[in-house]
C-alpha cells in the first residue's frame, strides 16, 4: 500500500522538480538551438515513458497486493502485446534518433566560408590563433614549441608568419558569422566547452579536431575545460567575447602576429603599431 503511494509520489516529485527546477540550460548564444529542441523532444518522450511505467507499476502494486485467498494469474506470454510494445518502443526511439542524426550531420559539416580560429589547450590555459592577411594558418607542430613560441607554429612556414596569436585566454568572435574552431593540444586531452554555445569537442595532442558554431548574440561567455586534464582541470578557464563586427575589427587590429612576437624586442618596438600591446 505504502509503496504504491510512494512510487506515485516519486513520479510526481520528479515531474515537479523538473518543472520548478531553477537549474536549466544557460540562455543559448549560438545556432545550435536544434540541439536544445532535440533534448526537449527527448525529455517529453522519456518523461512520458517514465511516468507511464512507474505509475502503471504503482497501480499493479496496489491492485495486486497479496490478500488472503488471492492468487496470481498464469500467463507465460502474450505475443501480441509484446510485439505491439516492441513496435511502439521502436517508433519512439526512431522519433528521437532521426532528428538527432540530422542535427549531427550539420554539426560535423562546417559550412563553406566559415572563418577559422585555432584553439590551443595546454595545462591549464588557452591560447588562440587566427589566420593573418593571407587567410591561412601556418603549419604547427608540438615539437616547435618553445618559450617564445608556446603554441608551436612552424617558424619556417611563410604562411604562419602573419598568423595572429592570442595568449591569455580571451578570444573575441564576431556575432552572426560561422566560425570553425580547430582544436589542438600540446599535452593532455582538453575540451573547449562554452555552455552557451552547446558545442564541445575533445582536443587530442597530436591531431586537430574541430567543431563549428555561429554565435547569435553578443556577450561575454566563460570557457571551461570539459575533459579531465590534470589537477588544474577546474581552473582551466577562458573567456569568449562575442561582439559586433566593428568592435571585433577594433580588437583584431590590436593583436600581434607571430612574426611580431618572435622578432627580437628592439626591432619589434619599431614595427609595432601605436597602441598595440607589448609581446607577452
Amino acid at each position, binding site marked *: 500500500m505504502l*509503496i504504491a503511494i510512494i512510487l506515485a509520489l*516519486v513520479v510526481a516529485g*520528479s515531474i515537479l522538480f523538473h518543472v520548478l*527546477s531553477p*537549474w*536549466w*540550460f*544557460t540562455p543559448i548564444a549560438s545556432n*545550435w538551438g*536544434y*540541439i536544445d529542441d*532535440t*533534448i526537449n523532444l*527527448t525529455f517529453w*518522450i*522519456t518523461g512520458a515513458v517514465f511516468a507511464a*511505467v*512507474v505509475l502503471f*507499476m504503482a497501480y*499493479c502494486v496496489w491492485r*495486486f497486493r*497479496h490478500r488472503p485467498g488471492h*492468487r*496470481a*494469474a*498464469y*500467463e*507465460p506470454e502474450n505475443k501480441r502485446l*509484446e510485439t505491439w510494445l*516492441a513496435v511502439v*518502443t*521502436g517508433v519512439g*526511439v526512431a522519433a*528521437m534518433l532521426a532528428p*538527432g*542524426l540530422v*542535427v*549531427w550531420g550539420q554539426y*560535423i559539416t562546417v559550412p563553406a566560408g566559415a572563418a577559422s580560429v585555432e584553439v590551443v589547450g595546454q595545462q591549464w590555459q588557452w591560447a588562440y590563433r587566427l589566420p593573418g592577411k593571407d587567410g591561412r594558418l601556418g603549419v604547427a607542430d*608540438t*615539437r616547435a614549441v618553445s618559450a617564445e613560441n608556446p603554441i608551436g607554429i612552424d617558424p619556417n612556414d611563410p604562411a604562419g608568419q602573419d598568423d595572429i596569436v592570442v595568449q591569455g585566454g580571451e578570444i573575441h568572435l564576431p556575432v552572426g558569422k560561422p566560425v570553425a574552431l580547430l582544436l589542438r593540444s*600540446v*599535452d*593532455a*586531452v582538453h*575540451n573547449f*566547452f562554452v*555552455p552557451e554555445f552547446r*558545442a*564541445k569537442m575533445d582536443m*587530442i*595532442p*597530436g591531431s586537430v579536431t574541430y567543431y563549428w558554431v555561429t554565435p547569435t548574440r553578443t556577450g561575454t561567455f566563460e570557457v571551461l575545460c*570539459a*575533459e*579531465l586534464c*590534470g*589537477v588544474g*582541470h*577546474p581552473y582551466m578557464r577562458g573567456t569568449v567575447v562575442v561582439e559586433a563586427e566593428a568592435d571585433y575589427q577594433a580588437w583584431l587590429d590590436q593583436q600581434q602576429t607571430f612574426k611580431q612576437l618572435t622578432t627580437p624586442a628592439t626591432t619589434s618596438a619599431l614595427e609595432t603599431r601605436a597602441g598595440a600591446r607589448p609581446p607577452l
Partner: protein
Amino acid sequence: MVDLTHGGDGHAAGHAGELELYHPTSWVTKYVFSQDAKVIAIQYGTTAMAIGLVALVLSWLMRIQLAYPGALPFIDADRYYQFITMHGMIMVVYLLTAVFLGGFGNYLIPLMLGARDMMFPYLNMLSYWIYLLAVLVLAAGFFVPGGPTGAGWTLYPPQAILANTPGQQWGIIIMLVSLMLFIIGFTMGGLNYVVTVLQGRTKGMTLMRMPLTVWGIFTATVMALLAFPALFVGAVMMLFDRLFGTSFFMPSIIAMGEPLDTAGGSPILFQHLFWFFGHPEVYIVALPAFGIVSDLISTHARKNIFGYRMMVWAIVIIGALSFVVWAHHMYVSGMNPGFGFFFATTTLIIAVPTALKVYNWVLTLWRGDIHFTVPMLFALGFIVTFVNGGLTGLFLGNVVVDVPLSDTMFVVAHFHMVMGVAPILVIFGAIYHWYPKMTGRMLNDAMGKIHFWVTFLGAYAVFFPMHYLGLLGVPRRYFESGDISFVPPSAHTLNEFMTIAALIVGAAQMLFLFNLVWSLRHGKPSGGNPWGATTLEWQTPETPPPHGNWGAERPVVYRWAYDYSVPGMAKDFLAQNDPGPGAAAAAPVGEGAR
C-alpha cells in the same frame, strides 16, 4: 593456460557421468583454501564488500568536498582526483563485477543447475585468490609514495602518465598491474561459469529451463571473457608507455615546458580499447542484475515471469549488440565524427530489447499476488531507478544530444543511476533473498525495510537532481565548481542537499552490515525454502547446502523455473524437480496443448 589438464585425467573411467569432488580434510581447506564454489562465492562477496566500503568512504569525502569546499583540509586537488579514480575503478570492476559474477555466479550457478560444484574447482579457488591479490595490490596504491593514480577511472593517456598527474610514480603502475591480475583471475573463474553452464546441468535442465539469473550471469560471463582482453591489451600497452617510454598512446608532448621523447602515438587508440571493454562492462553488470531481478519479481509476486522467451532473447541480443556500441562514449573524443551515425543508431537500437525487459517485469506484477518482502521492495526500487537511468541513456546515446551533456554532471548522474544505484539495489535484494539459503536464517525484516527505504529514496534524491546541474553545464570531475559564472548560488544549496542525502544513504549501509552479522545468530530460522520458490537451489536436502549440494542423488528437472500459481494446483508453486501430479503420465506435451 593454467591447469586445464587437471581434472581431465585419471578418473575419467569408473565415475561415469559424475565428476569426482575433492574432499576437504582440514579447516583450512574447508573455509580458506576451499574449492567449494559456495565458500568461494562468500569469499568473493566479502572481499568485494570490504573494498566497496573503501569506495563508499571515498564517495563521502568527494561529496563533502563538493558541498563544503575546504571543510576537510586534507582533501586537495591531488587527493580529490585520486579518490575519484579509485572510487570509480573499485565500484565498477572490483565490486560490481566481482559480486555479480564471482559472488552470485559461484553461489547460484551450480545450485540452480543441479550441479555439485563448478567444473574446475581448483581453478575456481585460484580465481578467488588472484582476485584477492588484485584487490590488495590496488589497495596498496594508497600507501606507496605519491599515492594512487589520479588519472580518472578511464585512465586516459597521455594525462595518466604525465609527470604532474598524481600517482604517476607508482600509482598508475599499481593500477594497471592490479587490473591485469583481476583479468587473469576473472578469466579462470569465467571459464568455470561458462563450462559449468554448458556441461554441468543436471538431468532435464535444458537451456530454456534455466532460471533467468543463470542466463544473465552466463551471458555476462561470456561477454566479460571477450571484453576484458581489450582492457588487458590496453593496460599492457600503457604499462610499456609508462615504463619503457614507448609511444603506443603517447604523441609528441610538452610536459612542464619540456618536450617528451615520445612521438606519434594515438590517445584515441587507448580510448577505443578502453571502451571496447568499458561498454560491455556496463552490461556485464546489468545482465546479471536483469536476471536476478526477474527471479525476485517472479518469486515474490507468485507469478511466472512474463514472456520468458523474450527475456532470454533480449539478454542474448543485448549481449551481442553491446559489442558494437562502445564508441558512444567517444562522440566528442575527436574520433572520426562519421562514426557517430553508426554508434548512435546501434545504441538506440539496444534500447528496444532493454525496454521490453522492463515491460515484462512490470507485466509480471500485473495480476500477480505481490508479497511486499524486502527482496520485492528492492526489485521495485531497481525498476524505478533503472527506468530513470535507462531513459537518460537515450539522451547520451543520441549523438548530438550528447554534445552539450557529455562530460557534465548529467553523465555522472546517468551512470550512477543506471549502473550504480540500480544494480546495487539488486545486489541487496538478492542478498535478502538468498541469505536464508546461505545461512539458514532470515535477515531481520524491520532493519531490511529501513535499509531499503533510506537507500532507495536517498539515492534517488542524490542522483535525480544531479542531472539538472549537468543541464546547466556544470562539468564533471571539477574539484570545486563554485566560481563558474553561470552557476547560481542555488546550485550550491543543491550540492549540499545531495551531500547530506549521500551521507545518510551511506550510513544506512552500516545498518545493513550490522544486519548481516546480527542475523547470523539472531535471525529467524528460515527452513529450506522460505519464499516458496521453484528453482533448484531451494530444494537442497540441507540448508545451508553442504559441500556437494545434493546428498546421494542429483535432482532431476521436470519443468521450467516459473511454475507459480499453476491453475488447478493446490500449492502456488511447483518446484523444478517436482514431477507434478500424475508424475508417471507427465510425458512431454506438444505444441498443440496450448
